[in-house]
């Protein structure tokens, strides 16, 4: 028996001679099932478009992207991250829509010395205390976008505000963000169960009773559609105007249509942002998929180019991790949002815009930039990050 075993082990050792890095392996964790599956699809499409645009090569190496579904659950996301690193031996792991999924997966990736790139989630912990040299963001820190919205509310003289968000890591960050800049009175806050609560009737009734000047919400993905519909049905639309972040996107706009027309939101990017990369991205995306890209897509597209900049800086030597890290820190690629730089915590320092929903020439609903709210804005947690370079 023992001899058999030894034989097996020896055969195994032969099989497992370290594979030469002849291609760049990127693991991409997102949500492909459940109601949030549309977001995952949008991100996957954007990555695929990015690969088209770079000819599916980085520094002469083939690029392989392995998509995994986190099923909207932190534990599943963590398992998939583990699989991508240990089984698929990915050089980069990217994606992550949800803050709680990213937080659960974080340690697995950065401990394994794999580059982890968030294409969406930006929980405060990772921008502050838990920042890591192996972690980069191509999106934003969660608090920033609602901070911009807080400024907008101030500018518009909104005196009292009702705040609603789902009760998870990002929801809490969003609330903290708007509280940080908004100067009026916050009459009440409701944190709803996530992701299983889709019926907001009880909360909307409270909003009506509280009679605030405005309602601020953060309901990403499907929750945004449901929220908007129920807000419409509740008859609040005429009395309590709605300001939102990450709630209206290009995926639910075709469903919401004129219900969302004129709706205001803040964001670091918009489809009409006039940069060379963005023109290429938006037109390419519309051509290939027949719809407007979402901000999720924009961030995922940028992820491909960030990785490309790293691989090319080291001429495809994927073992040179320090070289790749130094390259990524320069943010030396054409981003759809225009030039930006990285803060010490590897989160972008960038502009935030006010956008509103309009109809384009063909009758499709999309968003347009109204004004720039914050310029070269850095998140507030960067100072808690011990990393410097």
């Amino acid at each position, binding site marked *: 028996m023992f001899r058999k075993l030894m034989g097996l082990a*020896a055969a195994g050792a032969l099989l497992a001679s370290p594979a030469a890095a002849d291609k760049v392996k990127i693991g991409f964790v997102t949500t492909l099932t459940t109601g949030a599956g549309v977001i995952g699809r949008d991100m996957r499409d954007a990555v695929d478009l990015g690969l088209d645009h770079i000819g599916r090569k980085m520094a002469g190496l083939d690029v392989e992207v392995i998509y995994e579904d986190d099923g909207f659950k932190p*534990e599943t996301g963590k398992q998939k991250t583990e699989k991508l690193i*240990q089984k698929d031996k990915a050089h980069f792991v990217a994606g992550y829509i949800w803050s709680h999924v990213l937080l*659960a997966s974080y340690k697995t990736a950065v401990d394994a010395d794999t580059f982890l790139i968030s294409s969406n989630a930006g929980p405060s912990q990772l921008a502050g205390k838990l920042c890591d040299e192996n972690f980069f963001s191509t999106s934003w820190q969660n608090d920033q976008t609602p901070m911009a919205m807080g400024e907008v509310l101030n500018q518009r003289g909104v005196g009292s505000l009702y705040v609603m968000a789902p009760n998870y890591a990002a929801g809490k960050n969003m609330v903290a963000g708007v509280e940080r800049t908004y100067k009026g009175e916050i009459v009440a806050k409701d944190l709803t169960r*996530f992701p299983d609560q889709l019926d907001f009737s009880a909360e909307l009734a409270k909003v009506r009773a509280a009679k605030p000047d405005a309602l601020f919400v953060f309901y990403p993905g499907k929750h945004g559609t449901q929220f908007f519909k129920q807000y419409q049905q509740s008859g609040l639309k005429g009395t309590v105007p709605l300001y939102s972040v990450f709630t209206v996107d290009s995926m639910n706009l075709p469903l919401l249509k004129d219900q969302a027309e004129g709706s205001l939101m803040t964001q670091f990017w918009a489809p009409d942002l006039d940069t060379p990369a963005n023109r290429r991205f938006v037109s390419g995306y519309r051509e290939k998929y027949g719809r407007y890209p979402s901000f999720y897509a924009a961030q995922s597209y940028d992820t491909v180019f960030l990785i490309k900049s790293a691989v090319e800086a080291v001429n495809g030597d994927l073992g040179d991790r320090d070289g790749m890290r130094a390259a990524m820190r320069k943010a030396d690629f054409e981003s759809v949002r225009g030039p930006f730089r990285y803060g010490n915590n590897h989160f972008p320092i960038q502009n935030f815009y006010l956008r509103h929903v309009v109809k384009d020439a063909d009758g499709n609903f999309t968003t347009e930039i109204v004004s720039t709210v914050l310029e070269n804005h850095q998140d507030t947690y960067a100072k808690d990050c011990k990393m410097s370079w």
Partner: protein
Amino acid sequence: MRIPVGTAVAAGSIVALAIVPPITEALREPFYLGLCLRLMILAIAAISLNLILGFGNMVSFGHAAYMGIGAYVVGIGAFHAVEDGIDWLANGFLHVPLAIAASSLAALVIGAISIRTRGVYFIMITLAFGQMLYFVGVGLEVYGADDGLSLYMRSDFGDVLDINDNTRFYYLVLALLLATLYGTKRLVASRFGLVIRGARSNERRLAAIGIPVYRYKLVAFTVAGAICGVAGVLLANRTDFVSPDMMHWTRSGDLIIMVVLGGMGTLFGPLYGAAVLVLVEEFLSGVTEHWQIVFGPLLVLVAVYARGGIAGALRALERRRG
């Protein structure tokens, strides 16, 4: 001499589990080591459920809650050890007894109320308590609430049993699995086990001859909770992550499925059930994204045709052979 099919399969699976680490090491596939580690931990939890479900006919639909309690003992300990620098809170020799104490206390209270009910009402009242504990986890703002808690430090069992080394951790869990199997075997064969099994078929008769059945059942329920709490300690260390999700009723459902699929009231059944569920999910989902459309009807067939689950099928095979 002919070895019965059941025994051969049981011995084979233990040997297979024992040789996983050298193989995965040779193949440089640590992923599969982690997978089998998870399998064994879930098997321990399923065995503890089988103790009351299989042998005592107490269908607890809140069993994952004890696993959650054990996991949170580790999670909270590690959290304070890292955040506040209280090193001794990460001590594994503290975690295990504390997890046993907490989960058996919870099981004692839950059992004391639940065991008075019968049948589906018992299922639902244990579900209710499980969900209550789940929502306690959801409400724990300090410890991450819904989002859970990442473990930045595993339980510290000293240098010899350093579970940061996955191979050592693996053999520790394997040893605990064997201990659980052995303990279950002894317990079921004992006078205590006789009463529990007897209560399954005719509780009133046992009561009539003066045996305090309620107390026996309560003890069994508590012991099962305690074992499951230990499984929770292991699972938290395995995943480096704790969340209320571990206590959700679907997890309790998974445990029940493992026991029923593997074979209720058999020693090795829960191990088979856990293995099938974990491995099928991993490999079938690798083959096709739509693996559930195959696995679902398969479960229906098992329920309809293979009475007694996998262990039952092995017995039937043996009968046909002999």
